[in-house]
């Protein structure tokens, strides 16, 4: 369908094969910028999620003890609630009169509200919050396979905390980290509700653009061209993750 076309102002699809939808994506700075912005947001989400999930997962596996089940459940809740409700909740937290700004102001830490909605910061917070579980779960299962006491063994051999992480924990959690990164990246790339609500229509991502075309402009062929680009990126990520897993297994 993405190779069909639809004349401006018409709702009739012209089924003659054409690449003009793709040409439009490539040629229009608006879409290229949207694509780059989406890639950057997904990448940043992945990096932040990894940074948060690594210590969290390690703590869950090694230190949480009998609270493990409870904490895992808490971590998973955003995932089972769907995208909408947690995002609406976040809007309450992040808004100019929201909990975060309110608290910071009443503590006298800031004079003017931080702008956390309607920009990339808000979207980033929302994406990390929504997809953290996708990073935590594979990491927890990878760290579960860490033999007992390897950290202690490394420390007794002279490794400081950072060296223990770099030489022991990170290499051994690589499979989980790769799987989690691929999942979070793909989820962030295709996520729609979070950028729409937290971006408040001011930040266009690839998914919101496709939505616009499909539901508002009603240019279905162009919307499917946008979707195809996204699919191609997903396939690329999948292949890369698979390659990275193989590489990690060998080294």
């Amino acid at each position: 369908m993405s190779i069909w076309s639809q004349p401006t102002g018409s709702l009739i699809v012209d089924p003659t094969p054409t690449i003009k939808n793709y040409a439009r994506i490539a040629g229009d700075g608006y879409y290229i910028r949207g694509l780059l912005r989406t890639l950057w947001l997904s990448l940043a989400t992945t990096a932040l999620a990894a940074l948060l999930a690594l210590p969290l997962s390690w703590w869950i596996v090694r230190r949480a003890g009998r609270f493990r089940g409870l904490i895992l459940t808490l971590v998973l809740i955003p995932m089972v609630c769907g995208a909408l409700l947690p995002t609406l909740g976040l809007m309450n937290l992040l808004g100019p009169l929201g909990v975060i700004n309110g608290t910071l102001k009443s503590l006298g830490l800031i004079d003017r509200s931080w702008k956390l909605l309607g920009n990339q910061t808000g979207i980033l917070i929302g994406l990390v919050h929504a997809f953290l579980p996708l990073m935590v779960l594979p990491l927890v299962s990878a760290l579960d396979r860490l033999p007992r006491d390897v950290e202690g063994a490394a420390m007794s051999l002279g490794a400081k905390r950072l060296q223990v992480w770099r030489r022991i924990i990170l290499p051994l959690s690589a499979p989980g980290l790769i799987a989690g990164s691929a999942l979070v990246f793909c989820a962030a790339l295709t996520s729609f509700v979070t950028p729409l609500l937290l971006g408040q229509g001011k930040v266009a991502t690839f998914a919101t653009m496709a939505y616009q075309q499909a539901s508002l402009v009603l240019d279905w062929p162009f919307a499917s061209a946008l979707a195809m680009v996204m699919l191609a990126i997903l396939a690329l990520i999948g292949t890369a993750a698979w390659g990275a897993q193989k590489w990690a297994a060998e080294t």
Partner: protein
Amino acid sequence: MVPPPMTSYLKIDAIGKSYGTTRVLHDVRLDVAPGDFTVLLGPSGCGKSTLLRIIAGLLDSDSGKLVLQGDDITALPAWDRDIGLVFQNYALFPHMTVAENVAFGLDMRNLPKAEIKARVAEALDAVRLGDLGDRKPAALSGGQQQRVAIARAIAIKPRLLLLDEPLSNLDAVLRASVRTELRDLHDRTGITTIMVTHDQAEALSIADRVVLMNEGRIVQNDTPEGIYREPASAFAASFLGSPPANLFPLPTASAAQTTGWTPPPAVAGHLGTDALLALRPEALKLTEEPTPHALPAHLKRIEFQGADRLAHVEALGHPLIVRLSDDQTLTRPDVWLTLPDTPRVFSKTTGALIAPATKG
């Protein structure tokens, strides 16, 4: 004669540790002499591993002090202690080869490549694994993995080598030979070693000093022979030996008389008091004819153990085990039990030694 002051290589000074409200170590004090092979022996859950982790610096004590070679190391982080540690489950790094595992501690010390290579080879040779350096730990047997763990710990030339139940994951045949090898390795390298075990036979056979622990306290610190022959508590008597000493509660004088038992003079005074006799199976003798001071007993069963035969008897309603001499035959169930002249007497309630009075 005043004994010379003991040179203490490692001084464990009133170390205490609690988990929540449970006290796991009660002011543990221990001096380890340089070059000694010390075994921490005690039942499971008595705090041996906890103490070992505190010495290694992997766990903080709540109170007390550790002094190694004159330096207070209590607050020193594990990575600065130069203490080699071998875990019960080996804790090898699965993503590294055997050689990389052994090299890890040397890498951390930023030694030159050539020296690392030489010391890895030396450590692997010491545990006779010279040709397995390129394997991953998963491709090794349990016994080999354990040698790697030992090689990794000794490669750093540690000031102290700690071993937590190193033999418990090996099968019985391997255990006996690795025991000998561990002792050989210690004698060759001269590294002051502390090993943890719950197996008394292992402790007696390998140690210079056996440090017996119970419920978070050190209850005796002695040579293997000393702790076996002169247990300081009923617990020590009943924990060491296979089978361990019989704990025989003394009857009242009248009960003894009714059974027709005239106890040896050293025992007679304790009749009817809060007293137990600790009787080693090999210190008892069974006869079919009465001897002076023998206790009438009933033979229930003879257990054949290869080199040994153990007679299960009952005297005054209490079960006892007697090691029989090679050539002895017993045909009748009614037998006489001869006790040693001066058996060790302990308090039934506290387990403390009552007689003979301790020397010095």
